[in-house]
């Protein structure tokens, strides 16, 4: 049956995005679960140092959201790979859709997911610290105060990193859908690459350094947006070759 209504690309993408935000609630419950697991891993502190002399022994334990951030990064990557799964693609068939609108709505969802993930990871650090203060008392605790600008900067930079990881994850997911054999090969390649990189720094180290050592948020955003666009275009390119749904 053909529809006589002419709908714009923007309207379709918006409709799909709104639908996905409601349908993918498990994405956020997974994030909460993962962050709570990270809480447990942060119980003993995310780092410590100590030393002493004949008079005194000083042990410093650092409490922060580092572990939560690492877990959230893993969450962003894994979730992005699963968005391209067949059952999720089938969801789009409920709407007037093309591969392009489907991808665009997915990418918009990923951007939104990165923002929400970053905000929750940074802000949950405060919850963790307050729990420490409430349950361990205020003795021997030195707190750091933050300005709103610091918090926003943290959220902004983490969003950008999450966007990068989810962009790569989305590409990996698309590749796996196109070439299912990659499910087996990709982990092997990654592990092998890590071994090689462990011996001497190679392309992977260079790539990580390229993003991780950028000190300017503006430049980092530019780099990540460029990388994200490349991943997105590659994903679309790979997926549109599978024109017929199998």
């Amino acid at each position: 049956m053909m529809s006589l209504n002419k709908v714009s690309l923007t309207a379709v993408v918006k409709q799909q995005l709104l639908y996905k935000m409601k349908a993918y609630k498990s994405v956020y419950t997974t994030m909460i679960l993962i962050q709570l697991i990270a809480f447990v891993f942060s119980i003993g502190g995310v780092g410590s140092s100590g030393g002493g002399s004949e008079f005194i022994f000083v042990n410093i334990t650092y409490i922060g959201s580092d572990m939560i951030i690492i877990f959230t990064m893993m969450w962003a990557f894994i979730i992005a790979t699963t968005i391209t799964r067949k059952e999720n693609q089938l969801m789009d068939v409920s709407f007037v859709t093309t591969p392009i609108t489907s991808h665009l709505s997915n990418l918009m969802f990923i951007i939104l997911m990165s923002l929400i993930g970053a905000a929750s990871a940074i802000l949950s650090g405060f919850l963790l610290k307050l729990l420490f203060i409430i349950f361990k008392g205020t003795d021997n605790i030195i707190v750091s105060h933050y300005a709103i600008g610091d918090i926003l900067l943290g959220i902004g930079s983490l969003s950008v990193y999450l966007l990068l990881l989810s962009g790569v994850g989305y590409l990996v997911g698309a590749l796996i859908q196109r070439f299912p054999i990659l499910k087996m090969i990709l982990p092997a390649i990654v592990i092998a690459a890590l071994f090689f990189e462990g011996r001497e720094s190679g392309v992977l180290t260079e790539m990580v350094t390229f993003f991780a050592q950028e000190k300017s948020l503006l430049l980092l955003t530019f780099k990540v947006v460029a990388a994200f666009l490349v991943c997105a275009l590659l994903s679309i390119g790979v997926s549109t070759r599978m024109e017929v749904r199998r």
Partner: protein
Amino acid sequence: MTLFLPIIIIVVLLLVIPLISRTAKQPGIKFNKSVIISTYFILILLSTILYPFITRNMHTVDLSVYGEEWGGDVIELKRPENLDELSQTFEATFDYDNDTIQLEAHVDYLTTLFYEKTDELIDEIKVSYYTSENDKLPLNATYQNEPEVWLSGGGMLFIEDVYKEYRFTAFTKEFPITHFKGGSHWLSGSKIGADLREEQSFLIQVPEHVQIVYEEDFYELVELQR
């Protein structure tokens, strides 16, 4: 480990609230994901809002003033060459009055060196150090005819024939203990050597006009704000 309790409380809250919410009253036990998500976000937002109020009167660190960096295990306080010559020939007191002292550090230690410019000093540098609470008394000093001063965790040996220019006193002002990362520090050139332990740190007081030059990659040099 006592943190297990609050985390369990949070998990229980996140599970119980959706269960007791109206929307969750459906046949069979079904969690309302929206309620879980909103409860969690309300919780972390509340924490963020309450954090500055709860921690208001607690010990704090002004990160912009007291940062922490990896530093060298040996720190040298070097005067310019002409002053070294003065010191070596014992012609004069340690008059650093060509306005520059250079701080230089070597590898792999974390330390904090405080300095303060003060108009109370005119032609001398005052070096103080912070020790543990058990040892806040002024340090003992002995003098020999050699321009060297040694500080160590157990005491200090002052070997300096121009000793008037250095006054070593216990640094009694309290600072967050995290900033007293120690190690062996050697202030040389000016011939001040120190073996500082974890709970110790230097305060160098210099006249207003003296310029301090240092290698910032190696250790933390903090201007003391009183």
